[in-house]
């Protein structure tokens, strides 16, 4: 349906998007995963034709849309990371305004606005001014505006940033429902691994402007089929202990979250004995050790050497 071929963008000789290949098939939900600054938002701007690429192509039904993006824009809804709404207008006024921008006929518009208000759960607040809304409600309306013209593809750029868990769940359920019930194709970017795991059929992992891995959740986890993740909880994270672990030949990656040190090691090697030995040498108290099945987070750590929210 939508194909992105070797898409690149440079700003002042710095490549922010580097030869990205990506495709979306009709009706699927695809995740674009990467830490802040990975180039996800720029990739979205390139796909949605807001920024012209330095190289590569964006093809809709096998036709390039770079020179005339109108055909893509007609079937595309974009949910930007920012709340792109008129804060002094009500929810309904915002939806009507953007509906008019999309040239939806009056006879259809009011009904469509009601439908969208139902989808995003703001029917009872339709007349309230947006600036009085909570963060979660604004995010929902932000999605609603992207849905007003009944798009076939929707691109969501971190639509759950900075909201409470309840609103986040509502949004995730809404996206799932849109995909399942209305067969809308979704490209969902996030740096929340669990969101992508919950929603997406396929995942692209992006770092430093490049796609570094792609596939289904299982395919990605298989990257770590030969490795094991060990979580070591210590009383106090000591620098020399961490350095000693890093310098150990069998430890492929290491990350620290509060007092838990996660190391990726080959499956066939028994590292537990080694870890306790290093801890003793550096007078570090180990509180617990867990061997865990690799998650996508571990895959990301394995591929990039850092965590998603670094």
């Amino acid at each position, binding site marked *: 349906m939508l194909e992105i071929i070797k898409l690149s963008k440079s700003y002042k000789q710095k490549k922010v998007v580097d030869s990205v290949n990506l495709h979306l098939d009709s009706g699927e939900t695809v995740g674009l995963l990467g830490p802040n600054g990975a180039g996800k938002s720029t990739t979205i701007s390139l796909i949605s034709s*807001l920024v012209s690429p330095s190289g590569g192509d964006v093809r809709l039904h096998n036709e390039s849309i770079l020179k005339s993006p109108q055909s893509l*824009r*007609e079937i595309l809804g974009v949910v930007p990371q920012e709340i*792109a709404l008129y804060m002094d207008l009500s929810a309904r006024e915002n939806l*009507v305004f*953007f509906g008019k*921008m999309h*040239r939806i006929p009056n006879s259809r518009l009011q009904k469509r606005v009601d439908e969208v208000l139902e989808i995003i759960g703001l029917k009872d607040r339709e007349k309230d001014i947006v600036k009085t809304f909570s963060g979660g409600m604004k995010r929902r309306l932000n999605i609603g505006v992207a849905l007003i013209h009944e798009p076939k593809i929707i691109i969501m750029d971190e639509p759950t940033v900075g909201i409470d868990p309840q609103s986040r769940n509502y949004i995730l359920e809404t996206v799932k429902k849109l995909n399942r019930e209305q067969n809308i194709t979704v490209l969902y970017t996030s740096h929340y691994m669990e969101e992508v795991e919950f929603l997406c059929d396929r995942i692209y992992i992006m770092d430093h402007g490049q796609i570094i891995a792609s596939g289904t959740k299982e395919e990605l986890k298989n990257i770590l089929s030969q490795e094991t993740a060990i979580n070591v909880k210590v009383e106090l994270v000591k620098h020399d202990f961490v350095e000693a672990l890093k310098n150990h030949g069998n430890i492929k990656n290491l990350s620290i979250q509060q007092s838990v040190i996660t190391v990726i090691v080959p499956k066939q090697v028994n590292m537990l004995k080694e870890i306790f030995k290093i801890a003793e040498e550096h007078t570090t108290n180990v509180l617990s050790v867990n061997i865990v099945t690799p998650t996508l987070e571990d895959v990301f750590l394995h591929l990039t050497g850092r965590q998603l929210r670094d």
Partner: protein
Amino acid sequence: MFFQLIKKELLVMWRRPRELIVLLLMPFILITILGSALGAFNDGDIKVDAKLAVLLKDDPKLAQEKAIKEIQHAALSEEEKTQKIAMISAFNPVDIFLNEVIETKELKKVLKVTVVEKGLSLKEQKKYDGILEIPASFSEQFYQKLINEKGTEGTEGKWKLAVADNTSVNATVIQDIVASFQKEMNLAKTAQQLQVDYGKIASSQTKVSAIENLTKKKEIDAFSYYAVGMCVMFVFYMGTTVADFAYQQKEEHIYERILLANVSPFAYFAGIFAAAFFLSFIQLNVLFGLTALVYGVTFPNIMYYLCITIALNGMTASFSVFITAISYVTNSRNVESIFSSLIVPILAFAGGSFFDLSSIGGFMERIGEISPGGAALTAYLKVIQGFSLYDMTEQFQAIFLFTGVLLLASMMLVGKRGAAR
């Protein structure tokens, strides 16, 4: 789509009381303060204070004596001689002009005349609003025409009037007086043919017509002046406010959303133009409506008022589009701040919104008349004074020129991609 952009802009404005206060209440307060505070100074002044130098090369007394002698030696009956001598003795055009017309109480209030016999240096010429040259042998030729009864079309030496600035009220007054007087000269000759006492007719008619001409250009009181001055100044603030809203739309990625709805950048900017045009139209009409109700500042010709208002709205809208285009290209909110805190006050000052630049005269007065705000201000004042639309041609040209230049520059800035990123 334009209707939606205008409606949205109206709703946003309505829900932001701070902007409403600045754009509607503030000018009204300033009109009240400036009108009452400076009214005492301005209203006491005589608005017209024309200075005329009369370069008198003619000797009317000698010409009169020469004409009388000629009649005495002419082959005429005694009755005819007496009649003609009486006529010539009673009618001395130069003397009537210098000692009767311009010495009337009404004209002395507005016109100061200095009679000189030698040419003036350039420096001296600058002291006067007009220089009237009465050529040598004017009176002699004039009397010849009267004696020989060769009709009313005079071929005698003509009075030459040079004015420093055609557009100033002072120059207009001088031109009116001289033109009226010359008209009376022709009337006098006709009367002479009909053997009417033309001396009396000439002097009384000249006075009346000169005064009529003066009163036609109504004086501007302080409230009228500052009503126009503040409205013209604050209409530019409407321009910057709309531009500020527009930039906010870019900052908050709403502009990108609108582009994604397949709205072309040019259509979007045309929407900003339409919104600024409509809002400034409402603003001006509310402000002028209020000043009419509270201070009785009215425009005698509503069509002229509407013509200027629409032209000014067009210029304001272009101004708004221009600021938006620069801020979109530079990606900076500072652009709007610079315009609202620096450029608009400069334009208001140069346009004469704070005080009447004609009191300074010269270059500043000229700048005032053709600067964007000054042109509109001058045109509005001319409507109040009772001038015709034709008299405002220069002001309309200036307004249309600025509108065109601003729109062209905006189009070049927006370009094909609409300054999206």
